[in-house]
């Protein structure tokens, strides 16, 4: 019925997002995804041939997830992002559940000390910490949006334990709403970090912590806390670097290997050294696509965390710089979408999602270039991992959904 059709076009749809999405953001995502897939194929084929018997093993799987992911991305971008708030309330408890489950079930063979993965038979593995990141971002975006005013005003807390203090005239302590929310958020962030840390997953812990702190910063809590937090992080980092032995053995080895460039060259230091050799071999213009020598089993698992070293070798300093710039553009465009978002929830969610991608990329590049200790962090759009790619693209779909309502010029 044409009549109804017209009506629907005029009246905002209750479920579906309206308006065009931000094309530059999509283009950046598609460029990164394409380069990522090509580089994955180039980096992984020797390793795949030797370990899986077929050169395209990793590429094929990644490609399937990418195609499915793109489909999911467009679907998600059509959903009015207000509905993601519903997801926030579901995803947070689910994240906790998964983070606990992963600690209980036996880890995959060969990774006995790392409770990071849950295997879904016939599908593959996924990391609950990935779900937890999205869960945390969604929860904080939703909750901060809802309580933004309470956080940003000197309003007394109405929480049960606080009411007692606040109603007692003699009490010198007044508990403000901002304090209660702050403590709540810190508890959520802290408990998640603790669970992920128990997985023996330092990089996941660091990412979750950084995401949480950023969201709290955006929430408008007093700046002095963040100064204190920064000082705290610096002190802890310095302490860890000076006393690596206080950490679990797998992490302390990696810090030792970062501090001492001759540490266990055929063991812990092997991967980093090989990555550096690859980067060095690339030079300014690179060896050309497909011409990396280091990917021939020198860089172990070149399709995973250290794929950037192969990118550097094949595409050179020029290519690597272009990719860093692409990630920065993604962050920039994401923040533009966020800042011009229709509402606070959209802004917070978009910032959280884009920051997560940006931070992870920056940390990965720092790890591969031996600027920080090897933490086992993957490069978004590039590193092999079907489920995490699917989630990443889905999240980009969420950003696109938000962009439909942003006050930016649409082409």
């Amino acid at each position, binding site marked *: 019925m044409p009549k109804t059709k017209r009506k629907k076009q005029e009246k905002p749809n209750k479920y579906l997002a309206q308006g065009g999405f931000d094309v530059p953001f999509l283009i950046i995502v598609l460029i990164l995804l394409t380069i990522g897939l090509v580089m994955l194929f180039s980096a992984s084929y020797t390793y795949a041939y030797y370990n899986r018997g077929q050169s395209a093993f990793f590429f094929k799987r990644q490609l399937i997830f990418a195609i499915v992911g793109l489909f999911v991305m467009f679907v998600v971008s059509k959903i009015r992002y207000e509905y993601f708030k519903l997801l926030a309330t579901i995803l947070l408890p689910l994240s906790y559940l998964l983070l606990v489950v992963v600690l209980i079930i036996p880890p995959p063979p060969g990774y006995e000390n790392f409770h990071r993965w849950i295997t879904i038979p016939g599908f593959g593995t996924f990391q609950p910490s990935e779900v937890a990141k999205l869960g945390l971002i969604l929860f904080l975006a939703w909750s901060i949006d809802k309580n933004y005013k309470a956080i940003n005003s000197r309003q007394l807390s109405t929480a049960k334990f606080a009411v007692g203090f606040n109603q007692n005239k003699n009490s010198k302590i007044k508990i403000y709403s901002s304090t209660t929310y702050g403590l709540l958020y810190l508890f959520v962030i802290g408990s998640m970090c603790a669970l992920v840390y128990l997985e023996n997953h330092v990089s996941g812990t660091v990412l979750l912590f950084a995401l949480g702190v950023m969201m709290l*910063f*955006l929430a*408008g809590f007093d700046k002095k806390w963040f100064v204190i937090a920064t000082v705290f992080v610096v002190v802890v980092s310095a302490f860890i670097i000076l006393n690596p032995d206080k950490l679990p053995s797998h992490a302390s080895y990696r810090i030792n290997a970062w501090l001492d460039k001759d540490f266990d060259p055929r063991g812990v230091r092997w991967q980093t050294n090989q990555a550096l050799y690859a980067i*060095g071999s690339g*030079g300014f213009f690179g060896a050309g696509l497909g011409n990396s*020598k280091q990917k021939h089993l*020198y860089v172990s698992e070149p399709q995973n965390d250290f794929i950037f070293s192969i990118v550097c070798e094949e595409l050179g300093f020029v290519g690597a710089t272009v990719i860093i710039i692409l990630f920065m553009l993604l962050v920039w465009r994401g923040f533009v979408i966020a800042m011009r978002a229709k*509402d*606070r929830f959209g802004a917070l969610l978009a910032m959280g999602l884009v920051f997560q991608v940006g*931070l992870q990329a920056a940390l990965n590049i720092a790890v591969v270039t031996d600027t920080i200790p090897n933490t086992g962090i993957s490069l978004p759009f590039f590193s092999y991992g079907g489920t995490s790619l699917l989630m990443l693209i889905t999240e980009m779909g969420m950003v696109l959904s938000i962009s439909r309502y942003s006050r930016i010029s649409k082409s």
Partner: protein
Amino acid sequence: MSNKPSKQLIQRAVVIMVVTCIIGFGAGFFGLINAQLINGEKYRQKAEVQQLSDKTINAERGTIYDRNMNILSQSANVWKVYINPSKIKKEEVKVDVTKGLCEILELEYDTVYKKASQSKYGYVSIKTQVENDVKLEVVEFIRANKGYNEIIGIDPDTKRYYPYMTFASTVLGFTGADDTGRSGLEYFYDETLTGVSGRIITAKNALQGDMPTKYESTYDAKQGTSLVLTIDQVIQYYLDKGLERAVTDFDASYGYGIVMDVKTGAILAMSTKPDFDPNEPYEVINPKVLESLEEIQDEEEKKKVLSDARYAQWRNRTISDTYEPGSVFKVVTAAAAIEENLVSDDEMFNCAGNIKIADRTYHCHKRDGHGTENFTQALMNSCNPVFVTVGQRLGVEKFFKYFEAFGFAETTGVDLPAEAAPAANVTYHTANKMGIVELSSSSFGQSFQVSPIQMINAVSAIGNGGKLMRPYIVSSMLDENKNTISVTSPKVKRQVISEKTASKVSEMMEAVATSGTAKNAYVAGYRVAGKTGTSQKLTSRGKYIASFSGFAPTNDPQIAILIVVDEPSSGVYTGGAVAAPVAAEVLEETLKYLNIEPQYTPEELARLDVKTPKLIGRTVPDAVKELKAKGFTVKTIGNGETVLNQTPAYNQVLPKDGLVVLYTDDKKETTKTKVPVLTGMSLAEVNRNAVAAGVNIKISGFTSGSDIVSYRQSVAPDTEVEMGTMVTISFKSNAGVSDLA
């Protein structure tokens, strides 16, 4: 209340974006610049080093040929077994690999286990020089076990083979496990033989697999240069055989000798017995040493003795040892005196059995003296007083002039390692330090040391018309395609004495070898010139060195020979009795082998060998008639009319009065006879016994005198042979061969 992002939110978002980009990506970008641009070259080189597999292709070591291109030493491809311990993940695999390899390669379990435990390494050699059949067993072992192909590997390796075992081993030397020469020619010409290793540089992945992008540059190996020796395999065999017999017969500690081409200085044969097998150079084969080794209980001492024995057996004594030449040296004194016109042909000397010089009395070996004799007779008798007298006439200056001229104060320069270097006033007296006493003893070859190669070279110079040659052993060098790349040309060092003097001395030496002390070196049909020597060892009393040196044929010398028998201890020890017969055997076989035309004396002609005619199929009277006409003795067996078989067969060489047996019946069996004892007899007795037993004899050695005695027969007594079989009998003389000073 507005739901829009507040100003504060946007401000803080900008802060986060800037911080992320500057600190986060900034750190990564800084790391990138550092790793790719600042330290990039360093990392690139390190990457290249590990990616490029630089494989050495060993250049095949050159071959050593004798002068007729028989292979004396050759490298062959063998294999090297290695393991990659980093691929061994499980203890049971390690144990199984160790067990398997130990069994196949015959190694100690603990040693291999230790190697297999070096888990940080990717290449640990287990055994080198593995033969092909053993290698195949290893391949089978790898195939039978899954995953072992990543653990056990096989690389090419080379091994040196000496097909004739102990043959000329002290001359050839041997190579070590690293394919480099350790002694002999292998050592002396190591660089020439080695060639230039090639390299293959290929890009390899971390598992040493091939990369898809081909990068390969090959530098071809240049095969080592091959040597063609002057050594003649056949002559070397004759010399080896003679020396081996001498060592056994006279229970000597060593026998060594050289056969040399008089005209060029080329060494045709050079041998030290007992020696070693260069295929297994560390195995001691000297039975005497082995015996004494068994008696030693103390392990430490045993080790030391074993080590000494190894060095001893690798020693080329013809080059590295020195000895007092004794009477052989008299030819040098004689040559000097004749050259200086200090002795005339008709001059007569008188030997009273001793001569007094300063406060010393020199005895002649014949205590009651040789009486009146000319110079040739003095040499034949090896008369010391005469040579002391002649030495006095020469005086220190002239004596030393000839001593030097004949090359005794310098190395010969032969292309072999470890030639004994003469040391002034240690191994010999220089003119300014030589008193009358030293001069006297030196005149008859005592109180100084020479090396065997020096001695034969000096004697050879006399045979060569006075021209002293530089001895050499490599006649030419060949590249890998057997093209000659260099030829050694004979080098005359100097004219030591005139041709006239040389031929005079040669004639004197021929007299020595015909009826003097060296008559046991006589070879029927050939004119041999030579001189014997016997010297007492200074180090141990009662031990002697018996030697003979000479050349043949006298009128046109072709080959020179030196035989030294070190410490003969079976009772006889003089050069004439011990060394000369060996020389005779070697000379006879060698001269015949070299097709040097024999020159018979009438007496020899009478006994000259005749070839048997073809008789099979002819009638018996016809055959008998022909045989009789040729001087043969005939024995007919059976009553048939035609000859069905004959012994010896057609075209065999028999003495003129030899026995030919004719078979006329078609009975298959032939008539057998037992070889009688034919040693320790005179020529007449040997003849008698041989005819009685129905065997033919062939005579070898010195047979001209009345005092000759047979000392060896080629077929042992009591051996059952066909009637008419030929037995070679060696004769020598035991009288008048003493020359002990």
